[in-house]
């Protein structure tokens, strides 16, 4: 049901765009939410000691510069660590809901 509707929407947008460029970029808010969930899932599966420390991005390697300019790499490591800490539990719920919805409605 949802699939037909989104295919129909994409079909409408194709008709609109058919005589201009060939690529279709019909964004809906639902596709944005899907992309956001996928990105956060990707950040959440990065394991601390098995992966991040091996490539030098672990949090024990971030205590370097004392100053007011932490640097991009330290900021990125902090961001990854905080996203993993905060989103671990809500992601369980959101992923379960998404799986159930996809199973029920295709």
């Amino acid at each position, binding site marked *: 049901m949802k699939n037909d509707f989104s295919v129909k*929407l994409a079909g*409408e*947008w194709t*008709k*609109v*765009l058919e*005589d*201009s*460029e060939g690529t279709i*970029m*019909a*964004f*809906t*808010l639902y*596709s*944005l939410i899907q992309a956001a969930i996928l990105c956060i899932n990707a950040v959440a599966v990065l394991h601390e000691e098995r992966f991040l420390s091996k490539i030098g991005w672990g949090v024990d390697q971030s205590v370097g510069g004392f*100053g*007011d*300019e*932490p640097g*991009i790499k330290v*900021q*990125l490591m902090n*961001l990854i660590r905080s996203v993993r800490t905060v989103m671990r539990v809500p992601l369980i719920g959101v992923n379960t809901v998404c799986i159930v919805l996809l199973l029920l409605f295709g």
Partner: protein
Amino acid sequence: MDVPHHGYRATKQRARAAPPTGDSVLFEDTSSPASGVNNQGFYTPGYNVGGPSNDMQGGVGVNNLFTDPMANAAMMYGSSLANQGKDMVNKEISRFMSVNKLKYFFAVDTRYVLKKLMILMFPYTHQDWEVRYHRDSPLTPRQDVNAPDLYIPTMAFITYILLAGMALGIQKRFSPEVLGICASTALVWIIIEVLVLLLSLYLLTVHSDLSTFDLIAYSGYKYVGMIFTVLCGLLFGSDGYFVALAWSSCALMFFIVRSLKMKILPSLSSDSMGMGSSAKPQLRLYITVATAVFQPIIIYWLTSHLVR
């Protein structure tokens, strides 16, 4: 806004002036006798109300409603419930975003809107780009023409959607779903741009006072350029479209670079630290220039299919 702005709200102003007179007279008549003798029998306020409201535009049905004590009690209970609900909603909303901060962005007047639109389309003669402050808080858009606002982006977004529908209708490609698709596509692009900007500002530890609403405002100014481009494309054909696209792209790039330069790039005079990290000003410059270059790309992407 008490002065009707030229394009957008002229009709709405006139429509809104008519209703309040009847309602306020009706409410004043019913509330003053009912508040005093509330705890006594309900018949006396009912009859008091029945008299004056009879020769207003109340009518016989309203008379019966106010003389019935159960309806009176139910109305008061309902209004207290509504007040409770309103307080709860306000409390919940103010946890996510402060309504006062949002009100700051909508405190505009006609003169500001006209000057800002002119600056957006022709920013080359504007001299002073500093946002003025008043005791550590930025001035409202009414008092400072450089302050960002959310009124112009919102109105321009809605106008762009309507214009897209009209353009497609002229070319006989219109159907009602297209309006929704266009609106959500444009909204999603704004969300993506604001998120990327926030992420890059966080990663480079730029301690500026650009809040999320400021970024939404600066991203929303491109809709004015889009409207101008689409209008020229509709009126003057494909050549007019490309000329208007070039003009509004250059104007918008200049505007964005000059506006964000004040906020993102460090001012050289107060750089007393002298950290010597020459990578930082360069990266901040890259952010500003990348934001500016992104605008024409998005304008072209979102409007080219409308003018064919």
